[in-house]
């Protein structure tokens, strides 16, 4: 790939982030703020002696332990961010190829020498690779502020916070787990990404209704024509276990990506994304 193509693709990604900064930067910032405020409020309700004991316990808990071993404990805090990312992703994907047709700016975007393939791939890349980076940065900011507040609380309650540095390192290590959880989940959910993009490019109105309605209809269609329910079984298998969406150990990362179900899902997702690329030519 020549340098110009890389610069072009980067400009496409930058455009996506600028256009949807509320979803990628604003939303996780609000979640981080809510968690910090809630935690601080809870801390203020606790009796001072209990607070001092709790802070001492926390500071000793992580002391001397490997941050990578302790990182998974912070995955609980990641859950509200992951949920926010999934909701933001659905909003983004269902609107992204629809909105610029609705406001006719597609005539400008397509007047530039950027192919439909580049455009659609930039949107997939934004959700799979780029958006989680912003979420992780917000979580990092939350951890940093949290650590500062914890230190202030500890000092004001005369607690020796020797292990707080280790806890912070474990929190930072968890950010890598969180990022790869999001990445692996995006690959797992590539069929959903493709489905939403396809209907975002297709619908003239209410793309979400189209996406949901047709999804239900194709299930009935398969049963009616073939007498089978493979589609429903497949979807249910992929959606059922929330454990699939979080990685708690680095060792399981490659297994989560390079297994038959994920790879088959990538093939199916690619079919739908290809449909979205061709659908983009219909600008009305």
């Amino acid at each position: 790939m020549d340098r110009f193509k890389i610069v072009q693709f980067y400009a496409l990604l930058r455009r996506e982030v600028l256009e949807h900064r509320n979803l990628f930067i604003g939303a996780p910032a609000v979640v981080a703020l809510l968690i910090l405020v809630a935690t601080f409020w809870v801390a203020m309700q606790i009796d001072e002696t209990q607070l001092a004991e709790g802070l001492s316990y926390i500071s000793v808990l992580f002391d001397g332990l490997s941050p990578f071993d302790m990182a998974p404990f912070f995955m609980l805090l990641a859950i509200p961010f992951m949920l926010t990312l999934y909701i933001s992703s659905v909003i983004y994907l269902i609107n992204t190829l629809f909105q610029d047709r609705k406001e006719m700016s597609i005539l400008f975007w397509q007047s530039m020498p950027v192919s439909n393939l580049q455009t659609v791939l930039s949107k997939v890349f934004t959700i799979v690779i780029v958006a989680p980076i912003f979420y992780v940065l917000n979580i990092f900011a939350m951890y940093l502020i949290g650590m500062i507040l914890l230190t202030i609380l500890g000092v004001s309650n005369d607690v020796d916070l020797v292990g707080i540095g280790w806890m912070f390192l474990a929190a930072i290590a968890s950010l890598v787990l969180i990022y790869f959880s999001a990445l692996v989940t995006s690959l797992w959910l590539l069929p959903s990404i493709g489905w939403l993009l396809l209907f975002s490019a297709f619908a003239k109105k209410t793309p979400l209704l189209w996406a949901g309605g047709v999804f239900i209809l194709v299930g009935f269609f398969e049963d009616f024509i073939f007498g089978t329910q493979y589609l429903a079984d497949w979807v249910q298998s992929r959606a059922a276990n929330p454990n699939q969406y979080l990685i708690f150990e680095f060792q399981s990362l490659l297994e989560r990506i390079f297994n038959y179900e994920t790879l088959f899902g990538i093939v199916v997702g690619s079919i739908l994304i290809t449909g979205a690329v061709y659908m983009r030519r219909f600008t009305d």
Partner: protein
Amino acid sequence: MSNIVEARSLRKNYGNFTALDGVDLTIPSGAISGLIGPNGAGKTTTLKALIGLCDVDGELSVTGFDPRKARHKLMEDVCFIADVGILPKWLKVSQLIDYVEAVHPRFDRKKAEKFLSTTDIPSNKRIKELSKGMVTQLHLALVMSIEVQLLVLDEPTLGLDIIYRKEFYDRLLNDYYDGNRTIIISTHQVEEIETLLSHLLFINKGKIVLDTLMSELSQVCTEVLVDADKMAEADACGPIHVRELLGKKSYTFESVLKERLEVLGELQTPSVADLFVAKLKEDRHG
């Protein structure tokens, strides 16, 4: 002179409505072509087809590319301005320039900034905060900073006041057109552009009804102010349009020998606007 656009039998239907009904057109390189027609004639559909924004049936070649197969390659050599308002409203002016600079290999940022410095457009404003005229100025500044063979303008001055409209065409001719670039302008405001054009295309109900170089217009079309005693003879020559003018009648003829018409009265070349009306009314009356 080579042709930059060649189209044969272009057809496009939107449901039961026929937008293009076998359009044939050829646009020579270096021309300023006016695609003129009433509302719903097929101007926008034709222009969108030329730049690959609309799938049509038929043969089509623009700068050597088929727009349906290689749109993004074609757009390295073609720029397009539609009606005012297609620039993305959420972008800031500076962000828009950054974007075009990154994605277009032939964009000259310094040129764009120089053009914009002669306007009142602030670089930190979002496009939705600009007036219609400013948005057009901005789009034109971007387009004039890109080195391309063909510029396609679809009703570019629609909804703008006279000052912005005049400035638009002044800039286009003085700062942009160099005799080598080709410009295609579609409009139904004929009077505005007739002095700019070197090539004239009339379109009505999805068909091209006139295709001529301006230099050949006088040989193709003639207007005659006919004396009262010659009207029967004038009717026999098959005029495309007749109108009352200061007590006399003005007849418009197409492809009729001047020698035959000289005896009827005073000859002149019709204005593009008058010819346009004449062709529309000819079409209406069959």
